[in-house]
């Protein structure tokens, strides 16, 4: 089963192992947090090295501003995750490494040092993740945090957008160690489901990963790639895409071509941002708070 749902409809899922959306107002965080709850921050699609003044005249300043915004959050997150496309693609391997190094140096300014990284196809597809791994290590992994099992899936290092048999076998083995009611959060770059294959918004063997996740009752997926918020269910699994930190893209299929939305001087940084995710572990609920790059 697959359903596309809007933000308002999604509110109805609160209490069903889904997500509650917050207003984005600072200070509300953790108002009703129970012991053991925590929150993390997701940033995505920073595309360091992108050059396109029409869609972002502050391409070199947006990431540092986002780092400053994360550092200014009232409550420090437990950890921070970047869900891919840290850098903008280049055919030049030396330039790719230069961009990865610059990105790494900028995010060193994050106060919270518990930072997890994932590749996007712009970082990894042209060399099967080789350069990205030199800087950030394994491209797929899992870790546990305060009762939640986190799994990072790499669906970009294969230029054909496949997770691949080896990684799927690893995922199967990893999930077999989890109870059916375990709290599981998955990070990916591309959507695991066929969101809009006409714009390459899919993972070729993503359905196999979803099949592996399906027996688990409490699974939520956070991903990037499409440069906008999007919320969709595949069965009982919720999938939430994040905004970009370079340029927004149009809603899936809303226009003939997948072209970046132009910068609006009257509303700079519109459509860009990052999110905080409050994990209410006992309820297996996740409260998403969207933050702008710059606060008004």
């Amino acid at each position, binding site marked *: 089963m697959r359903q596309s749902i809007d933000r308002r409809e999604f509110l109805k899922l609160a209490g069903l192992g889904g997500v509650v959306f917050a207003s984005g107002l600072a200070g509300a965080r953790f108002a009703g947090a129970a012991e053991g709850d925590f929150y993390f921050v997701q940033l995505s699609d920073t595309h360091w090295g992108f050059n396109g003044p029409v869609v972002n005249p502050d391409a070199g300043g947006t990431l540092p501003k986002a780092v400053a915004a994360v550092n200014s959050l009232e409550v420090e997150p437990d950890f921070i995750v970047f869900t891919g496309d840290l850098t903008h*693609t280049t*055919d030049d391997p030396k330039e790719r490494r230069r961009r990865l190094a610059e990105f790494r140096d900028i995010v060193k300014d994050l106060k919270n040092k518990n930072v997890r990284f994932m590749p996007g*196809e712009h970082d990894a597809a042209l060399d099967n993740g080789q350069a990205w791994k030199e800087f950030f290590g394994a491209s797929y992994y899992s870790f546990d945090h305060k009762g939640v099992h986190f799994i990072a899936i790499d669906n970009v290092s294969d*230029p054909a957008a496949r997770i691949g048999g080896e990684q799927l076998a690893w995922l199967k083995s990893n999930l077999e160690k989890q109870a059916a009611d375990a709290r599981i959060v998955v990070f990916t770059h591309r959507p695991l489901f066929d969101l809009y*294959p*006409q*714009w*390459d918004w899919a993972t*070729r063997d993503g359905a196999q990963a979803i099949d592996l996740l399906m027996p688990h009752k409490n699974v939520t997926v956070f991903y990037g790639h499409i440069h906008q918020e999007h919320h969709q269910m595949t069965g009982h699994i919720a999938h939430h895409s994040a905004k970009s930190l370079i340029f927004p893209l149009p809603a899936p299929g809303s226009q003939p071509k997948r072209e970046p939305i132009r910068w609006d001087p009257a509303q700079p940084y519109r459509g860009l941002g990052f999110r905080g995710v409050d994990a209410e572990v006992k309820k297996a609920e996740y409260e998403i708070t969207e933050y702008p790059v710059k606060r008004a």
Partner: protein
Amino acid sequence: MNSQRRRVLVAGVADVAFGARAFAQPKERVIRVTARKWVFLPREIRLKKGVPVVLEFVTADVVMGFNAPDFNVRADIIPGKVSRLRLVPDKTGTFVFLCDIFCGDGHEGMSGQIHVVA
């Protein structure tokens, strides 16, 4: 029956058989599509609903992909090889095709359109 006449009859049967086969399976139209960094040529493919075509793909650059999601068909395009894909359009309209193998700087703009008429 002498051998001369036997040869004529055999040839006649063979011609009829070939003719029947040719009638049942007319030669399908072949459209050659060249993929290069970062464009498909032609960018637009015009087809008729229900009429089969064979798409032939070549590239001299790097591995690329052809994907027409609305028809659930795709092919790898490999340098030095000819890939073929048979397509029978089952609906009219304009549909996107795209490269689905990340192939470089301009990959994300590498797409085209299939126009299918009745």
